[in-house]
C-alpha cells in the first residue's frame, strides 16, 4: 500500500514537472512572437480605433469628434464609389488570376515541355519585380504615343490614334486589370504546381486508362484534390484586391476623374496625400476596410467551406 502510494506520488510529481516544462517551453516559443504581434500589429490597430474618433492631422492637437468621422464616411460619395471599384476588381481580378494560374499550372504539371523549368522561372519572375517596376512597365505599354499596345494593334490595322488607355474613363479601370493579373499570376502558378505534384500519379494513370480527357482530369480530379489550396489562394487574392492599391496609385492615382479610385488609395491619400492630411478620417475608413475584409473572409468561409481531402 505504501509502496503503491509512493509510486503514484512520484508519478504525480513527474507529471506536474512535465506540465511545468511544457508550459515553460510554450512561453519561450510563443512570447517573442506574441510580444511582436502585440507591439507591431495589435497595438497600432487598437490605436487606429481611437484615432478614428479624432480630427487629427498627426501633429497638432487632436480634437475628439466622437463618431463624426464615421458619419462623414457614410455620407462621403467618394467612399462608395471607391468601394464599387473595389467590388469590380474583387470579382474580376481573383477570377482571372486563379483561372489563369490553374491553367498554366496544369499545363506545366502534365505536359512534358522541354522548357518547363524555364517557364516556371518566367511566370514567377513578375513576383520578383517590385510593384513600382510592374506599374512603370505597363505605363509604357499603355502609353498613347509610344506604347506597345497601340503599336501591337496597329499591326492588325487598328489605328488607335494616340489613344491613352489609362487616360479615358471608359478604359482605365479595365486596363488596370492587366498589370494586376500579370503581376499576380506567377506566385499562384508555383503554388498550384506544387499542390498538383502532390497528387499521386496512380490516380491520373487510372483516369487515363478509363479514357478520361485532359479537361475532365483537370476539372474532375486535379481541381477537387487541390481544393483546399485553391481556397487559400482565393482568400489571399480577394483580400489582396480589396486592400491593394499600389499599381493604381502609380499608374492613374485614382484618375481619370476618379474612375479608378479604390478604398485603399482613397484612405492613403486622406492620410498622406498631396492635398489633405487627416489621420482621424483615414483611420475611420481603415476601420471600414477592416470590417469589409473580415466580412469577405466570413463570406468566403460560408460559400467555400474548408474540406480536407485525403489521398
Amino acid at each position: 500500500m505504501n509502496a503503491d502510494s509512493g509510486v503514484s506520488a512520484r508519478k504525480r510529481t513527474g507529471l506536474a514537472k512535465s506540465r511545468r516544462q511544457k508550459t515553460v517551453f510554450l512561453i519561450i516559443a510563443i512570447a517573442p512572437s506574441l510580444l511582436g504581434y502585440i507591439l507591431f500589429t495589435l497595438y497600432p490597430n487598437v490605436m487606429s480605433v481611437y484615432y478614428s474618433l479624432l480630427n487629427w492631422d498627426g501633429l497638432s492637437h487632436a480634437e475628439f469628434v466622437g463618431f463624426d468621422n464615421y458619419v462623414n464616411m457614410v455620407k462621403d460619395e467618394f467612399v462608395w464609389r471607391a468601394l464599387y471599384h473595389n467590388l469590380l476588381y474583387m470579382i474580376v481580378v481573383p477570377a482571372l488570376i486563379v483561372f489563369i494560374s490553374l491553367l498554366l499550372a496544369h499545363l506545366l504539371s502534365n505536359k512534358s515541355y522541354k522548357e518547363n523549368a524555364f517557364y516556371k522561372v518566367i511566370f514567377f519572375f513578375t513576383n520578383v519585380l517590385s510593384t513600382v517596376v510592374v506599374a512603370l512597365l505597363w505605363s509604357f505599354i499603355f502609353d498613347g504615343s509610344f506604347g506597345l499596345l497601340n503599336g501591337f494593334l496597329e499591326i492588325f490595322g487598328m489605328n488607335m490614334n494616340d489613344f491613352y488607355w489609362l487616360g479615358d474613363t471608359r478604359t482605365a479601370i479595365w486596363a488596370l486589370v492587366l498589370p494586376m493579373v500579370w503581376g499576380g499570376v506567377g506566385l499562384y502558378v508555383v503554388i498550384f504546381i506544387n499542390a498538383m505534384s502532390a497528387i499521386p500519379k496512380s490516380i491520373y494513370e487510372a483516369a487515363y486508362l478509363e479514357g478520361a480527357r485532359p479537361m475532365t482530369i483537370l476539372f474532375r480530379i486535379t481541381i477537387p484534390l487541390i481544393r483546399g489550396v485553391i481556397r487559400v489562394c482565393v482568400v489571399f487574392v480577394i483580400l489582396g484586391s480589396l486592400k491593394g492599391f499600389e499599381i493604381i496609385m502609380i499608374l492613374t492615382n485614382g484618375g481619370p476623374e476618379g474612375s479608378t479610385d479604390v478604398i485603399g488609395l482613397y484612405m492613403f491619400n486622406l492620410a498622406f496625400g498631396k492635398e489633405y492630411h487627416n489621420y482621424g478620417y483615414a483611420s475611420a475608413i481603415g476601420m471600414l476596410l477592416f470590417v469589409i475584409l473580415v466580412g469577405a473572409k466570413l463570406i468566403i468561409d460560408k460559400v467555400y467551406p474548408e474540406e480536407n481531402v485525403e489521398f
Partner: protein
Amino acid sequence: MKNVNALLLSLVMVVVLLAGCGGNKNNEQASSTASAKSSESPSASASASSSASESNVYDNGLSKDDKVTLQMGFWEAGGGRAWMDLAVKKFTEKYPNVTFDITSTPTLNTILEPKIAAGKDDDMFDLFIPHFLAPGQLDRLAHAGKLEPQDDLWDRDLPGEPGKKLRSVISDDAYETSLSVGFTARVPVNGYTAGLFFDQKLFDEKGWNKNPATWDEFVALLDQIKADGVIPITFPGVYAGYLTDYTFNILQFDLAKANGSFDTYVKNFRDFEGPLLTTPENKEAWNRMYEFGKKGYFPSGVAALNHTQSQMQVLQHKAALVSTGDWVGNEMKETTPEGFKWGFMAIPAVNDPNQTVFVNSGVGDASFVIWKGKPDLNKKWAKEFILSLYDFEIQVSLASEAGTYPGRLDFGEDPARIAKLQPTQAAVMEYATKHNVEYISYRHTFGLTSPEHGQAEKLLSEQITAAATGKKDPASVLEKAEKLKQIAIEKDRPKQ
C-alpha cells in the same frame, strides 16, 4: 535548474527583441548619410562657456571656444548637394569651432516623419529642410510650436555686406509667405517659380509669339499652335494640380488686379473670408480652362500622363507648352535635346498690354527650419549658418548647381550672376523684364483639416482633367466644392 535556464533564456529573448526594436537611434543616419562630421563632440554637446573672453568672440557675438556640432537634415533633391558642400566648407572655415553632422538624402521625408512622430528633441535635427509628403505639415509644425522663430534674421546684415539687411533683398511676397504661419519659420534662401515652359527654338522656327502680352494674343497663339498640328498645352493629368496650381488658379488674381479689387480679393483669399471657389474671378478662370478643353488645347489622354511624360511631350515637340515649375530644366537636363532653349510665359488674363501678370512662386527647397527643442547655442549657430547662405557665392552656386531661383532680389543686378542661372530660371527672369510681373503664392492664414476639405479637394482635382478635356462644365463642381469648403472653414477656423 532546467526551469531556471529556460526562464533565463526566455527573458534574454524578450530583451533581445526589445533591444532590436528600440536600439536603432543612430542607425538611420549611418545608412543614409554623407557626413561632414568632426569627431570632437556629439550633436547637442554645446559646451557652453559663458565666460568667454572678448577676444574669443566672433563678430556675431558667439564664442570661438564653444565647440558645436550641428545636426542637419538635408534634402538632396534633383539639384544635388554641391552648393551645400560649398556652404558648409565656407562656414566651417570661417567658424572652425562649428562642425556639421549632415544626413543628406533624397528621401528626407521618410526620416523626418518618424523622428517628429517619436517626439524626442535629442533625436531631432538642429536644422533641416522641411521636405514632407503631406502639404501643410510645415504649418502644422509651426502651429504646434515645434519650430524656432527666425524673425531676428530679417534685421541682420548680410554676410560681407555691412548695412545691407536681409529683409531689403527679399521680395514682399516671399517675406509675407515666410510670415504666413504667424512668425518666420524659415527665411527664403531660394525660391521657385512656375508657369508655362516651352522651347524657344521651336517657337522661332514656327514663328509663334513668345511674348503674348494680352489674352487675345495668348488665345491666338494657342490657335496657331493647334493649327500647326502641335498640342498647345500639356500637363501631368495624374497629378492634375500642375495645371491649376501653376497656371490657371493664378488667373483669379490677374482678373482681380485688372478690376481693381486685388487687395480685398487677396485678403479674403488668405483669410478664407467669403466665397473661395465661386468668386466671379475664380469661376472665370476655370471656365477659360474648360473652354480651352473644348477647343482641344490639351492632350486628349492627358489624365494618363505623369509629369515626366508631359515634360517629354515638350522636349519631343509633340506639345508646345507645359505647365510646371522652373525645376523642369534641371529635372530634364539629361534628356533635353541639343539646341533646345527653354522659354517661359504666364497667361495674360486681360487685354491690357500693360497689365500685371502674376507668376506663381514659393519658398524653395533650400530653406531650413530650426527645431525649437534644441540647445540655445545650437539654434544660434544654425541661424548664423542660414544667414551665411545669402552670400552671393552660395546664391550663385544654388542657381547654377542646383538650378533653383535665387532667394535674393538683387541677384539680377549683376549680369555675370544672371549668366550663371540655369536656362529655366533665366527664362523666367527674362520674361519678368519684358512684362509687369508680380510673384504670388497660395498661402492662407490657417490650414484646413476637416474631411469636407479633403472631399472638396478631391472634387476639384478630378474636375481638372474633366474640364481640360472639355467633358464637364466646372460650374456645378465649383458650387459643390464651395459648400464643402465652407463647412471645413467653419470647423477649422481658429477659435478667437
